[in-house]
């Protein structure tokens, strides 16, 4: 089982990210589970979302505390939370940032496997708005291959209808543009 935690802000679609990948995994025949952090957090407030993917029925139903992968939708969150908290050894952190891997490592002391991508720029250019959740799916897939990229197409279409294509494009671009540094 792989456990993923997404950091975002209320309104940025962290939960949607988890859901989309969850659907993709289930459609592949896998077992998967996604959920928001349960609470009354408001637009703007830091929030979490969780995702588990497995080959068997998933019996645990609690927040992900020891993630294999952490996805950070908003670079500002790095200033205020330790996004690596509980990260399993060998785990990956994926960050939407315009900063380089080195800058992140030095500024925030991230020592794990690390991926960065300027998702804001991609989202702005592809979607017209700086909403980075579908974009960051690209980074996630690049870093983990947790599901096939194609598996996202149906969930994205179902979710976004007419603007699905743009989102697919954003995802693909992020997939291509994400830089990953193994450790």
């Amino acid at each position, binding site marked *: 089982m792989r456990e993923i935690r997404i950091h975002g802000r209320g309104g940025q679609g962290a939960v949607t990210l988890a859901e989309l990948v969850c659907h993709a995994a289930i459609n592949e025949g896998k077992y998967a589970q996604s959920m928001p952090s349960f609470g009354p957090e408001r637009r*703007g*407030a830091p929030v979490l979302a969780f995702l588990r993917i497995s080959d068997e029925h998933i019996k645990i139903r609690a927040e992900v505390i020891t993630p294999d992968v952490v996805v950070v939708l908003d670079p*500002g969150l790095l*200033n*205020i939370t330790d996004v690596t908290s509980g990260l399993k050894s060998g785990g990956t952190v994926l960050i939407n*940032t315009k*900063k380089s891997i080195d800058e992140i490592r030095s500024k925030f002391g991230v020592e794990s496997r690390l991926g960065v991508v300027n998702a804001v720029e991609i989202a702005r250019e592809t979607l017209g708005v700086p909403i980075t959740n579908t974009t960051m799916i690209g980074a996630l897939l690049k870093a983990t291959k947790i599901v096939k990229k194609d598996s996202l197409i149906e969930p994205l279409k179902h979710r976004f209808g007419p603007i699905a294509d743009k989102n697919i494009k954003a995802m693909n671009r992020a997939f291509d543009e994400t830089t990953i540094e193994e450790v």
Partner: protein
Amino acid sequence: MLSWKDLELGSIVTEPGNASAYKTGDWRSNKPIRDQSKCIKCGLCYIYCPDAAVELSKAGNYETNYFYCKGCGICANECPRGALTMIVEEE
């Protein structure tokens, strides 16, 4: 971490306004910048801020308290003099 013995009778909170320690500035993605030279001290930014994040300094200037400012942009939008500009928060 509070233990159950630390809770006040009926979970009453006896410290008025202690939520003010919570830094809602952390929520901000965009940030208002004030050009004091344009400002006419009308106070609209003060009275329109949902987060009471505009303060009148001793010197008589309106200033944004970034500890609380969430960056909604209302002040910038309503400033009659365009003295406020929203910029993207630095990473």
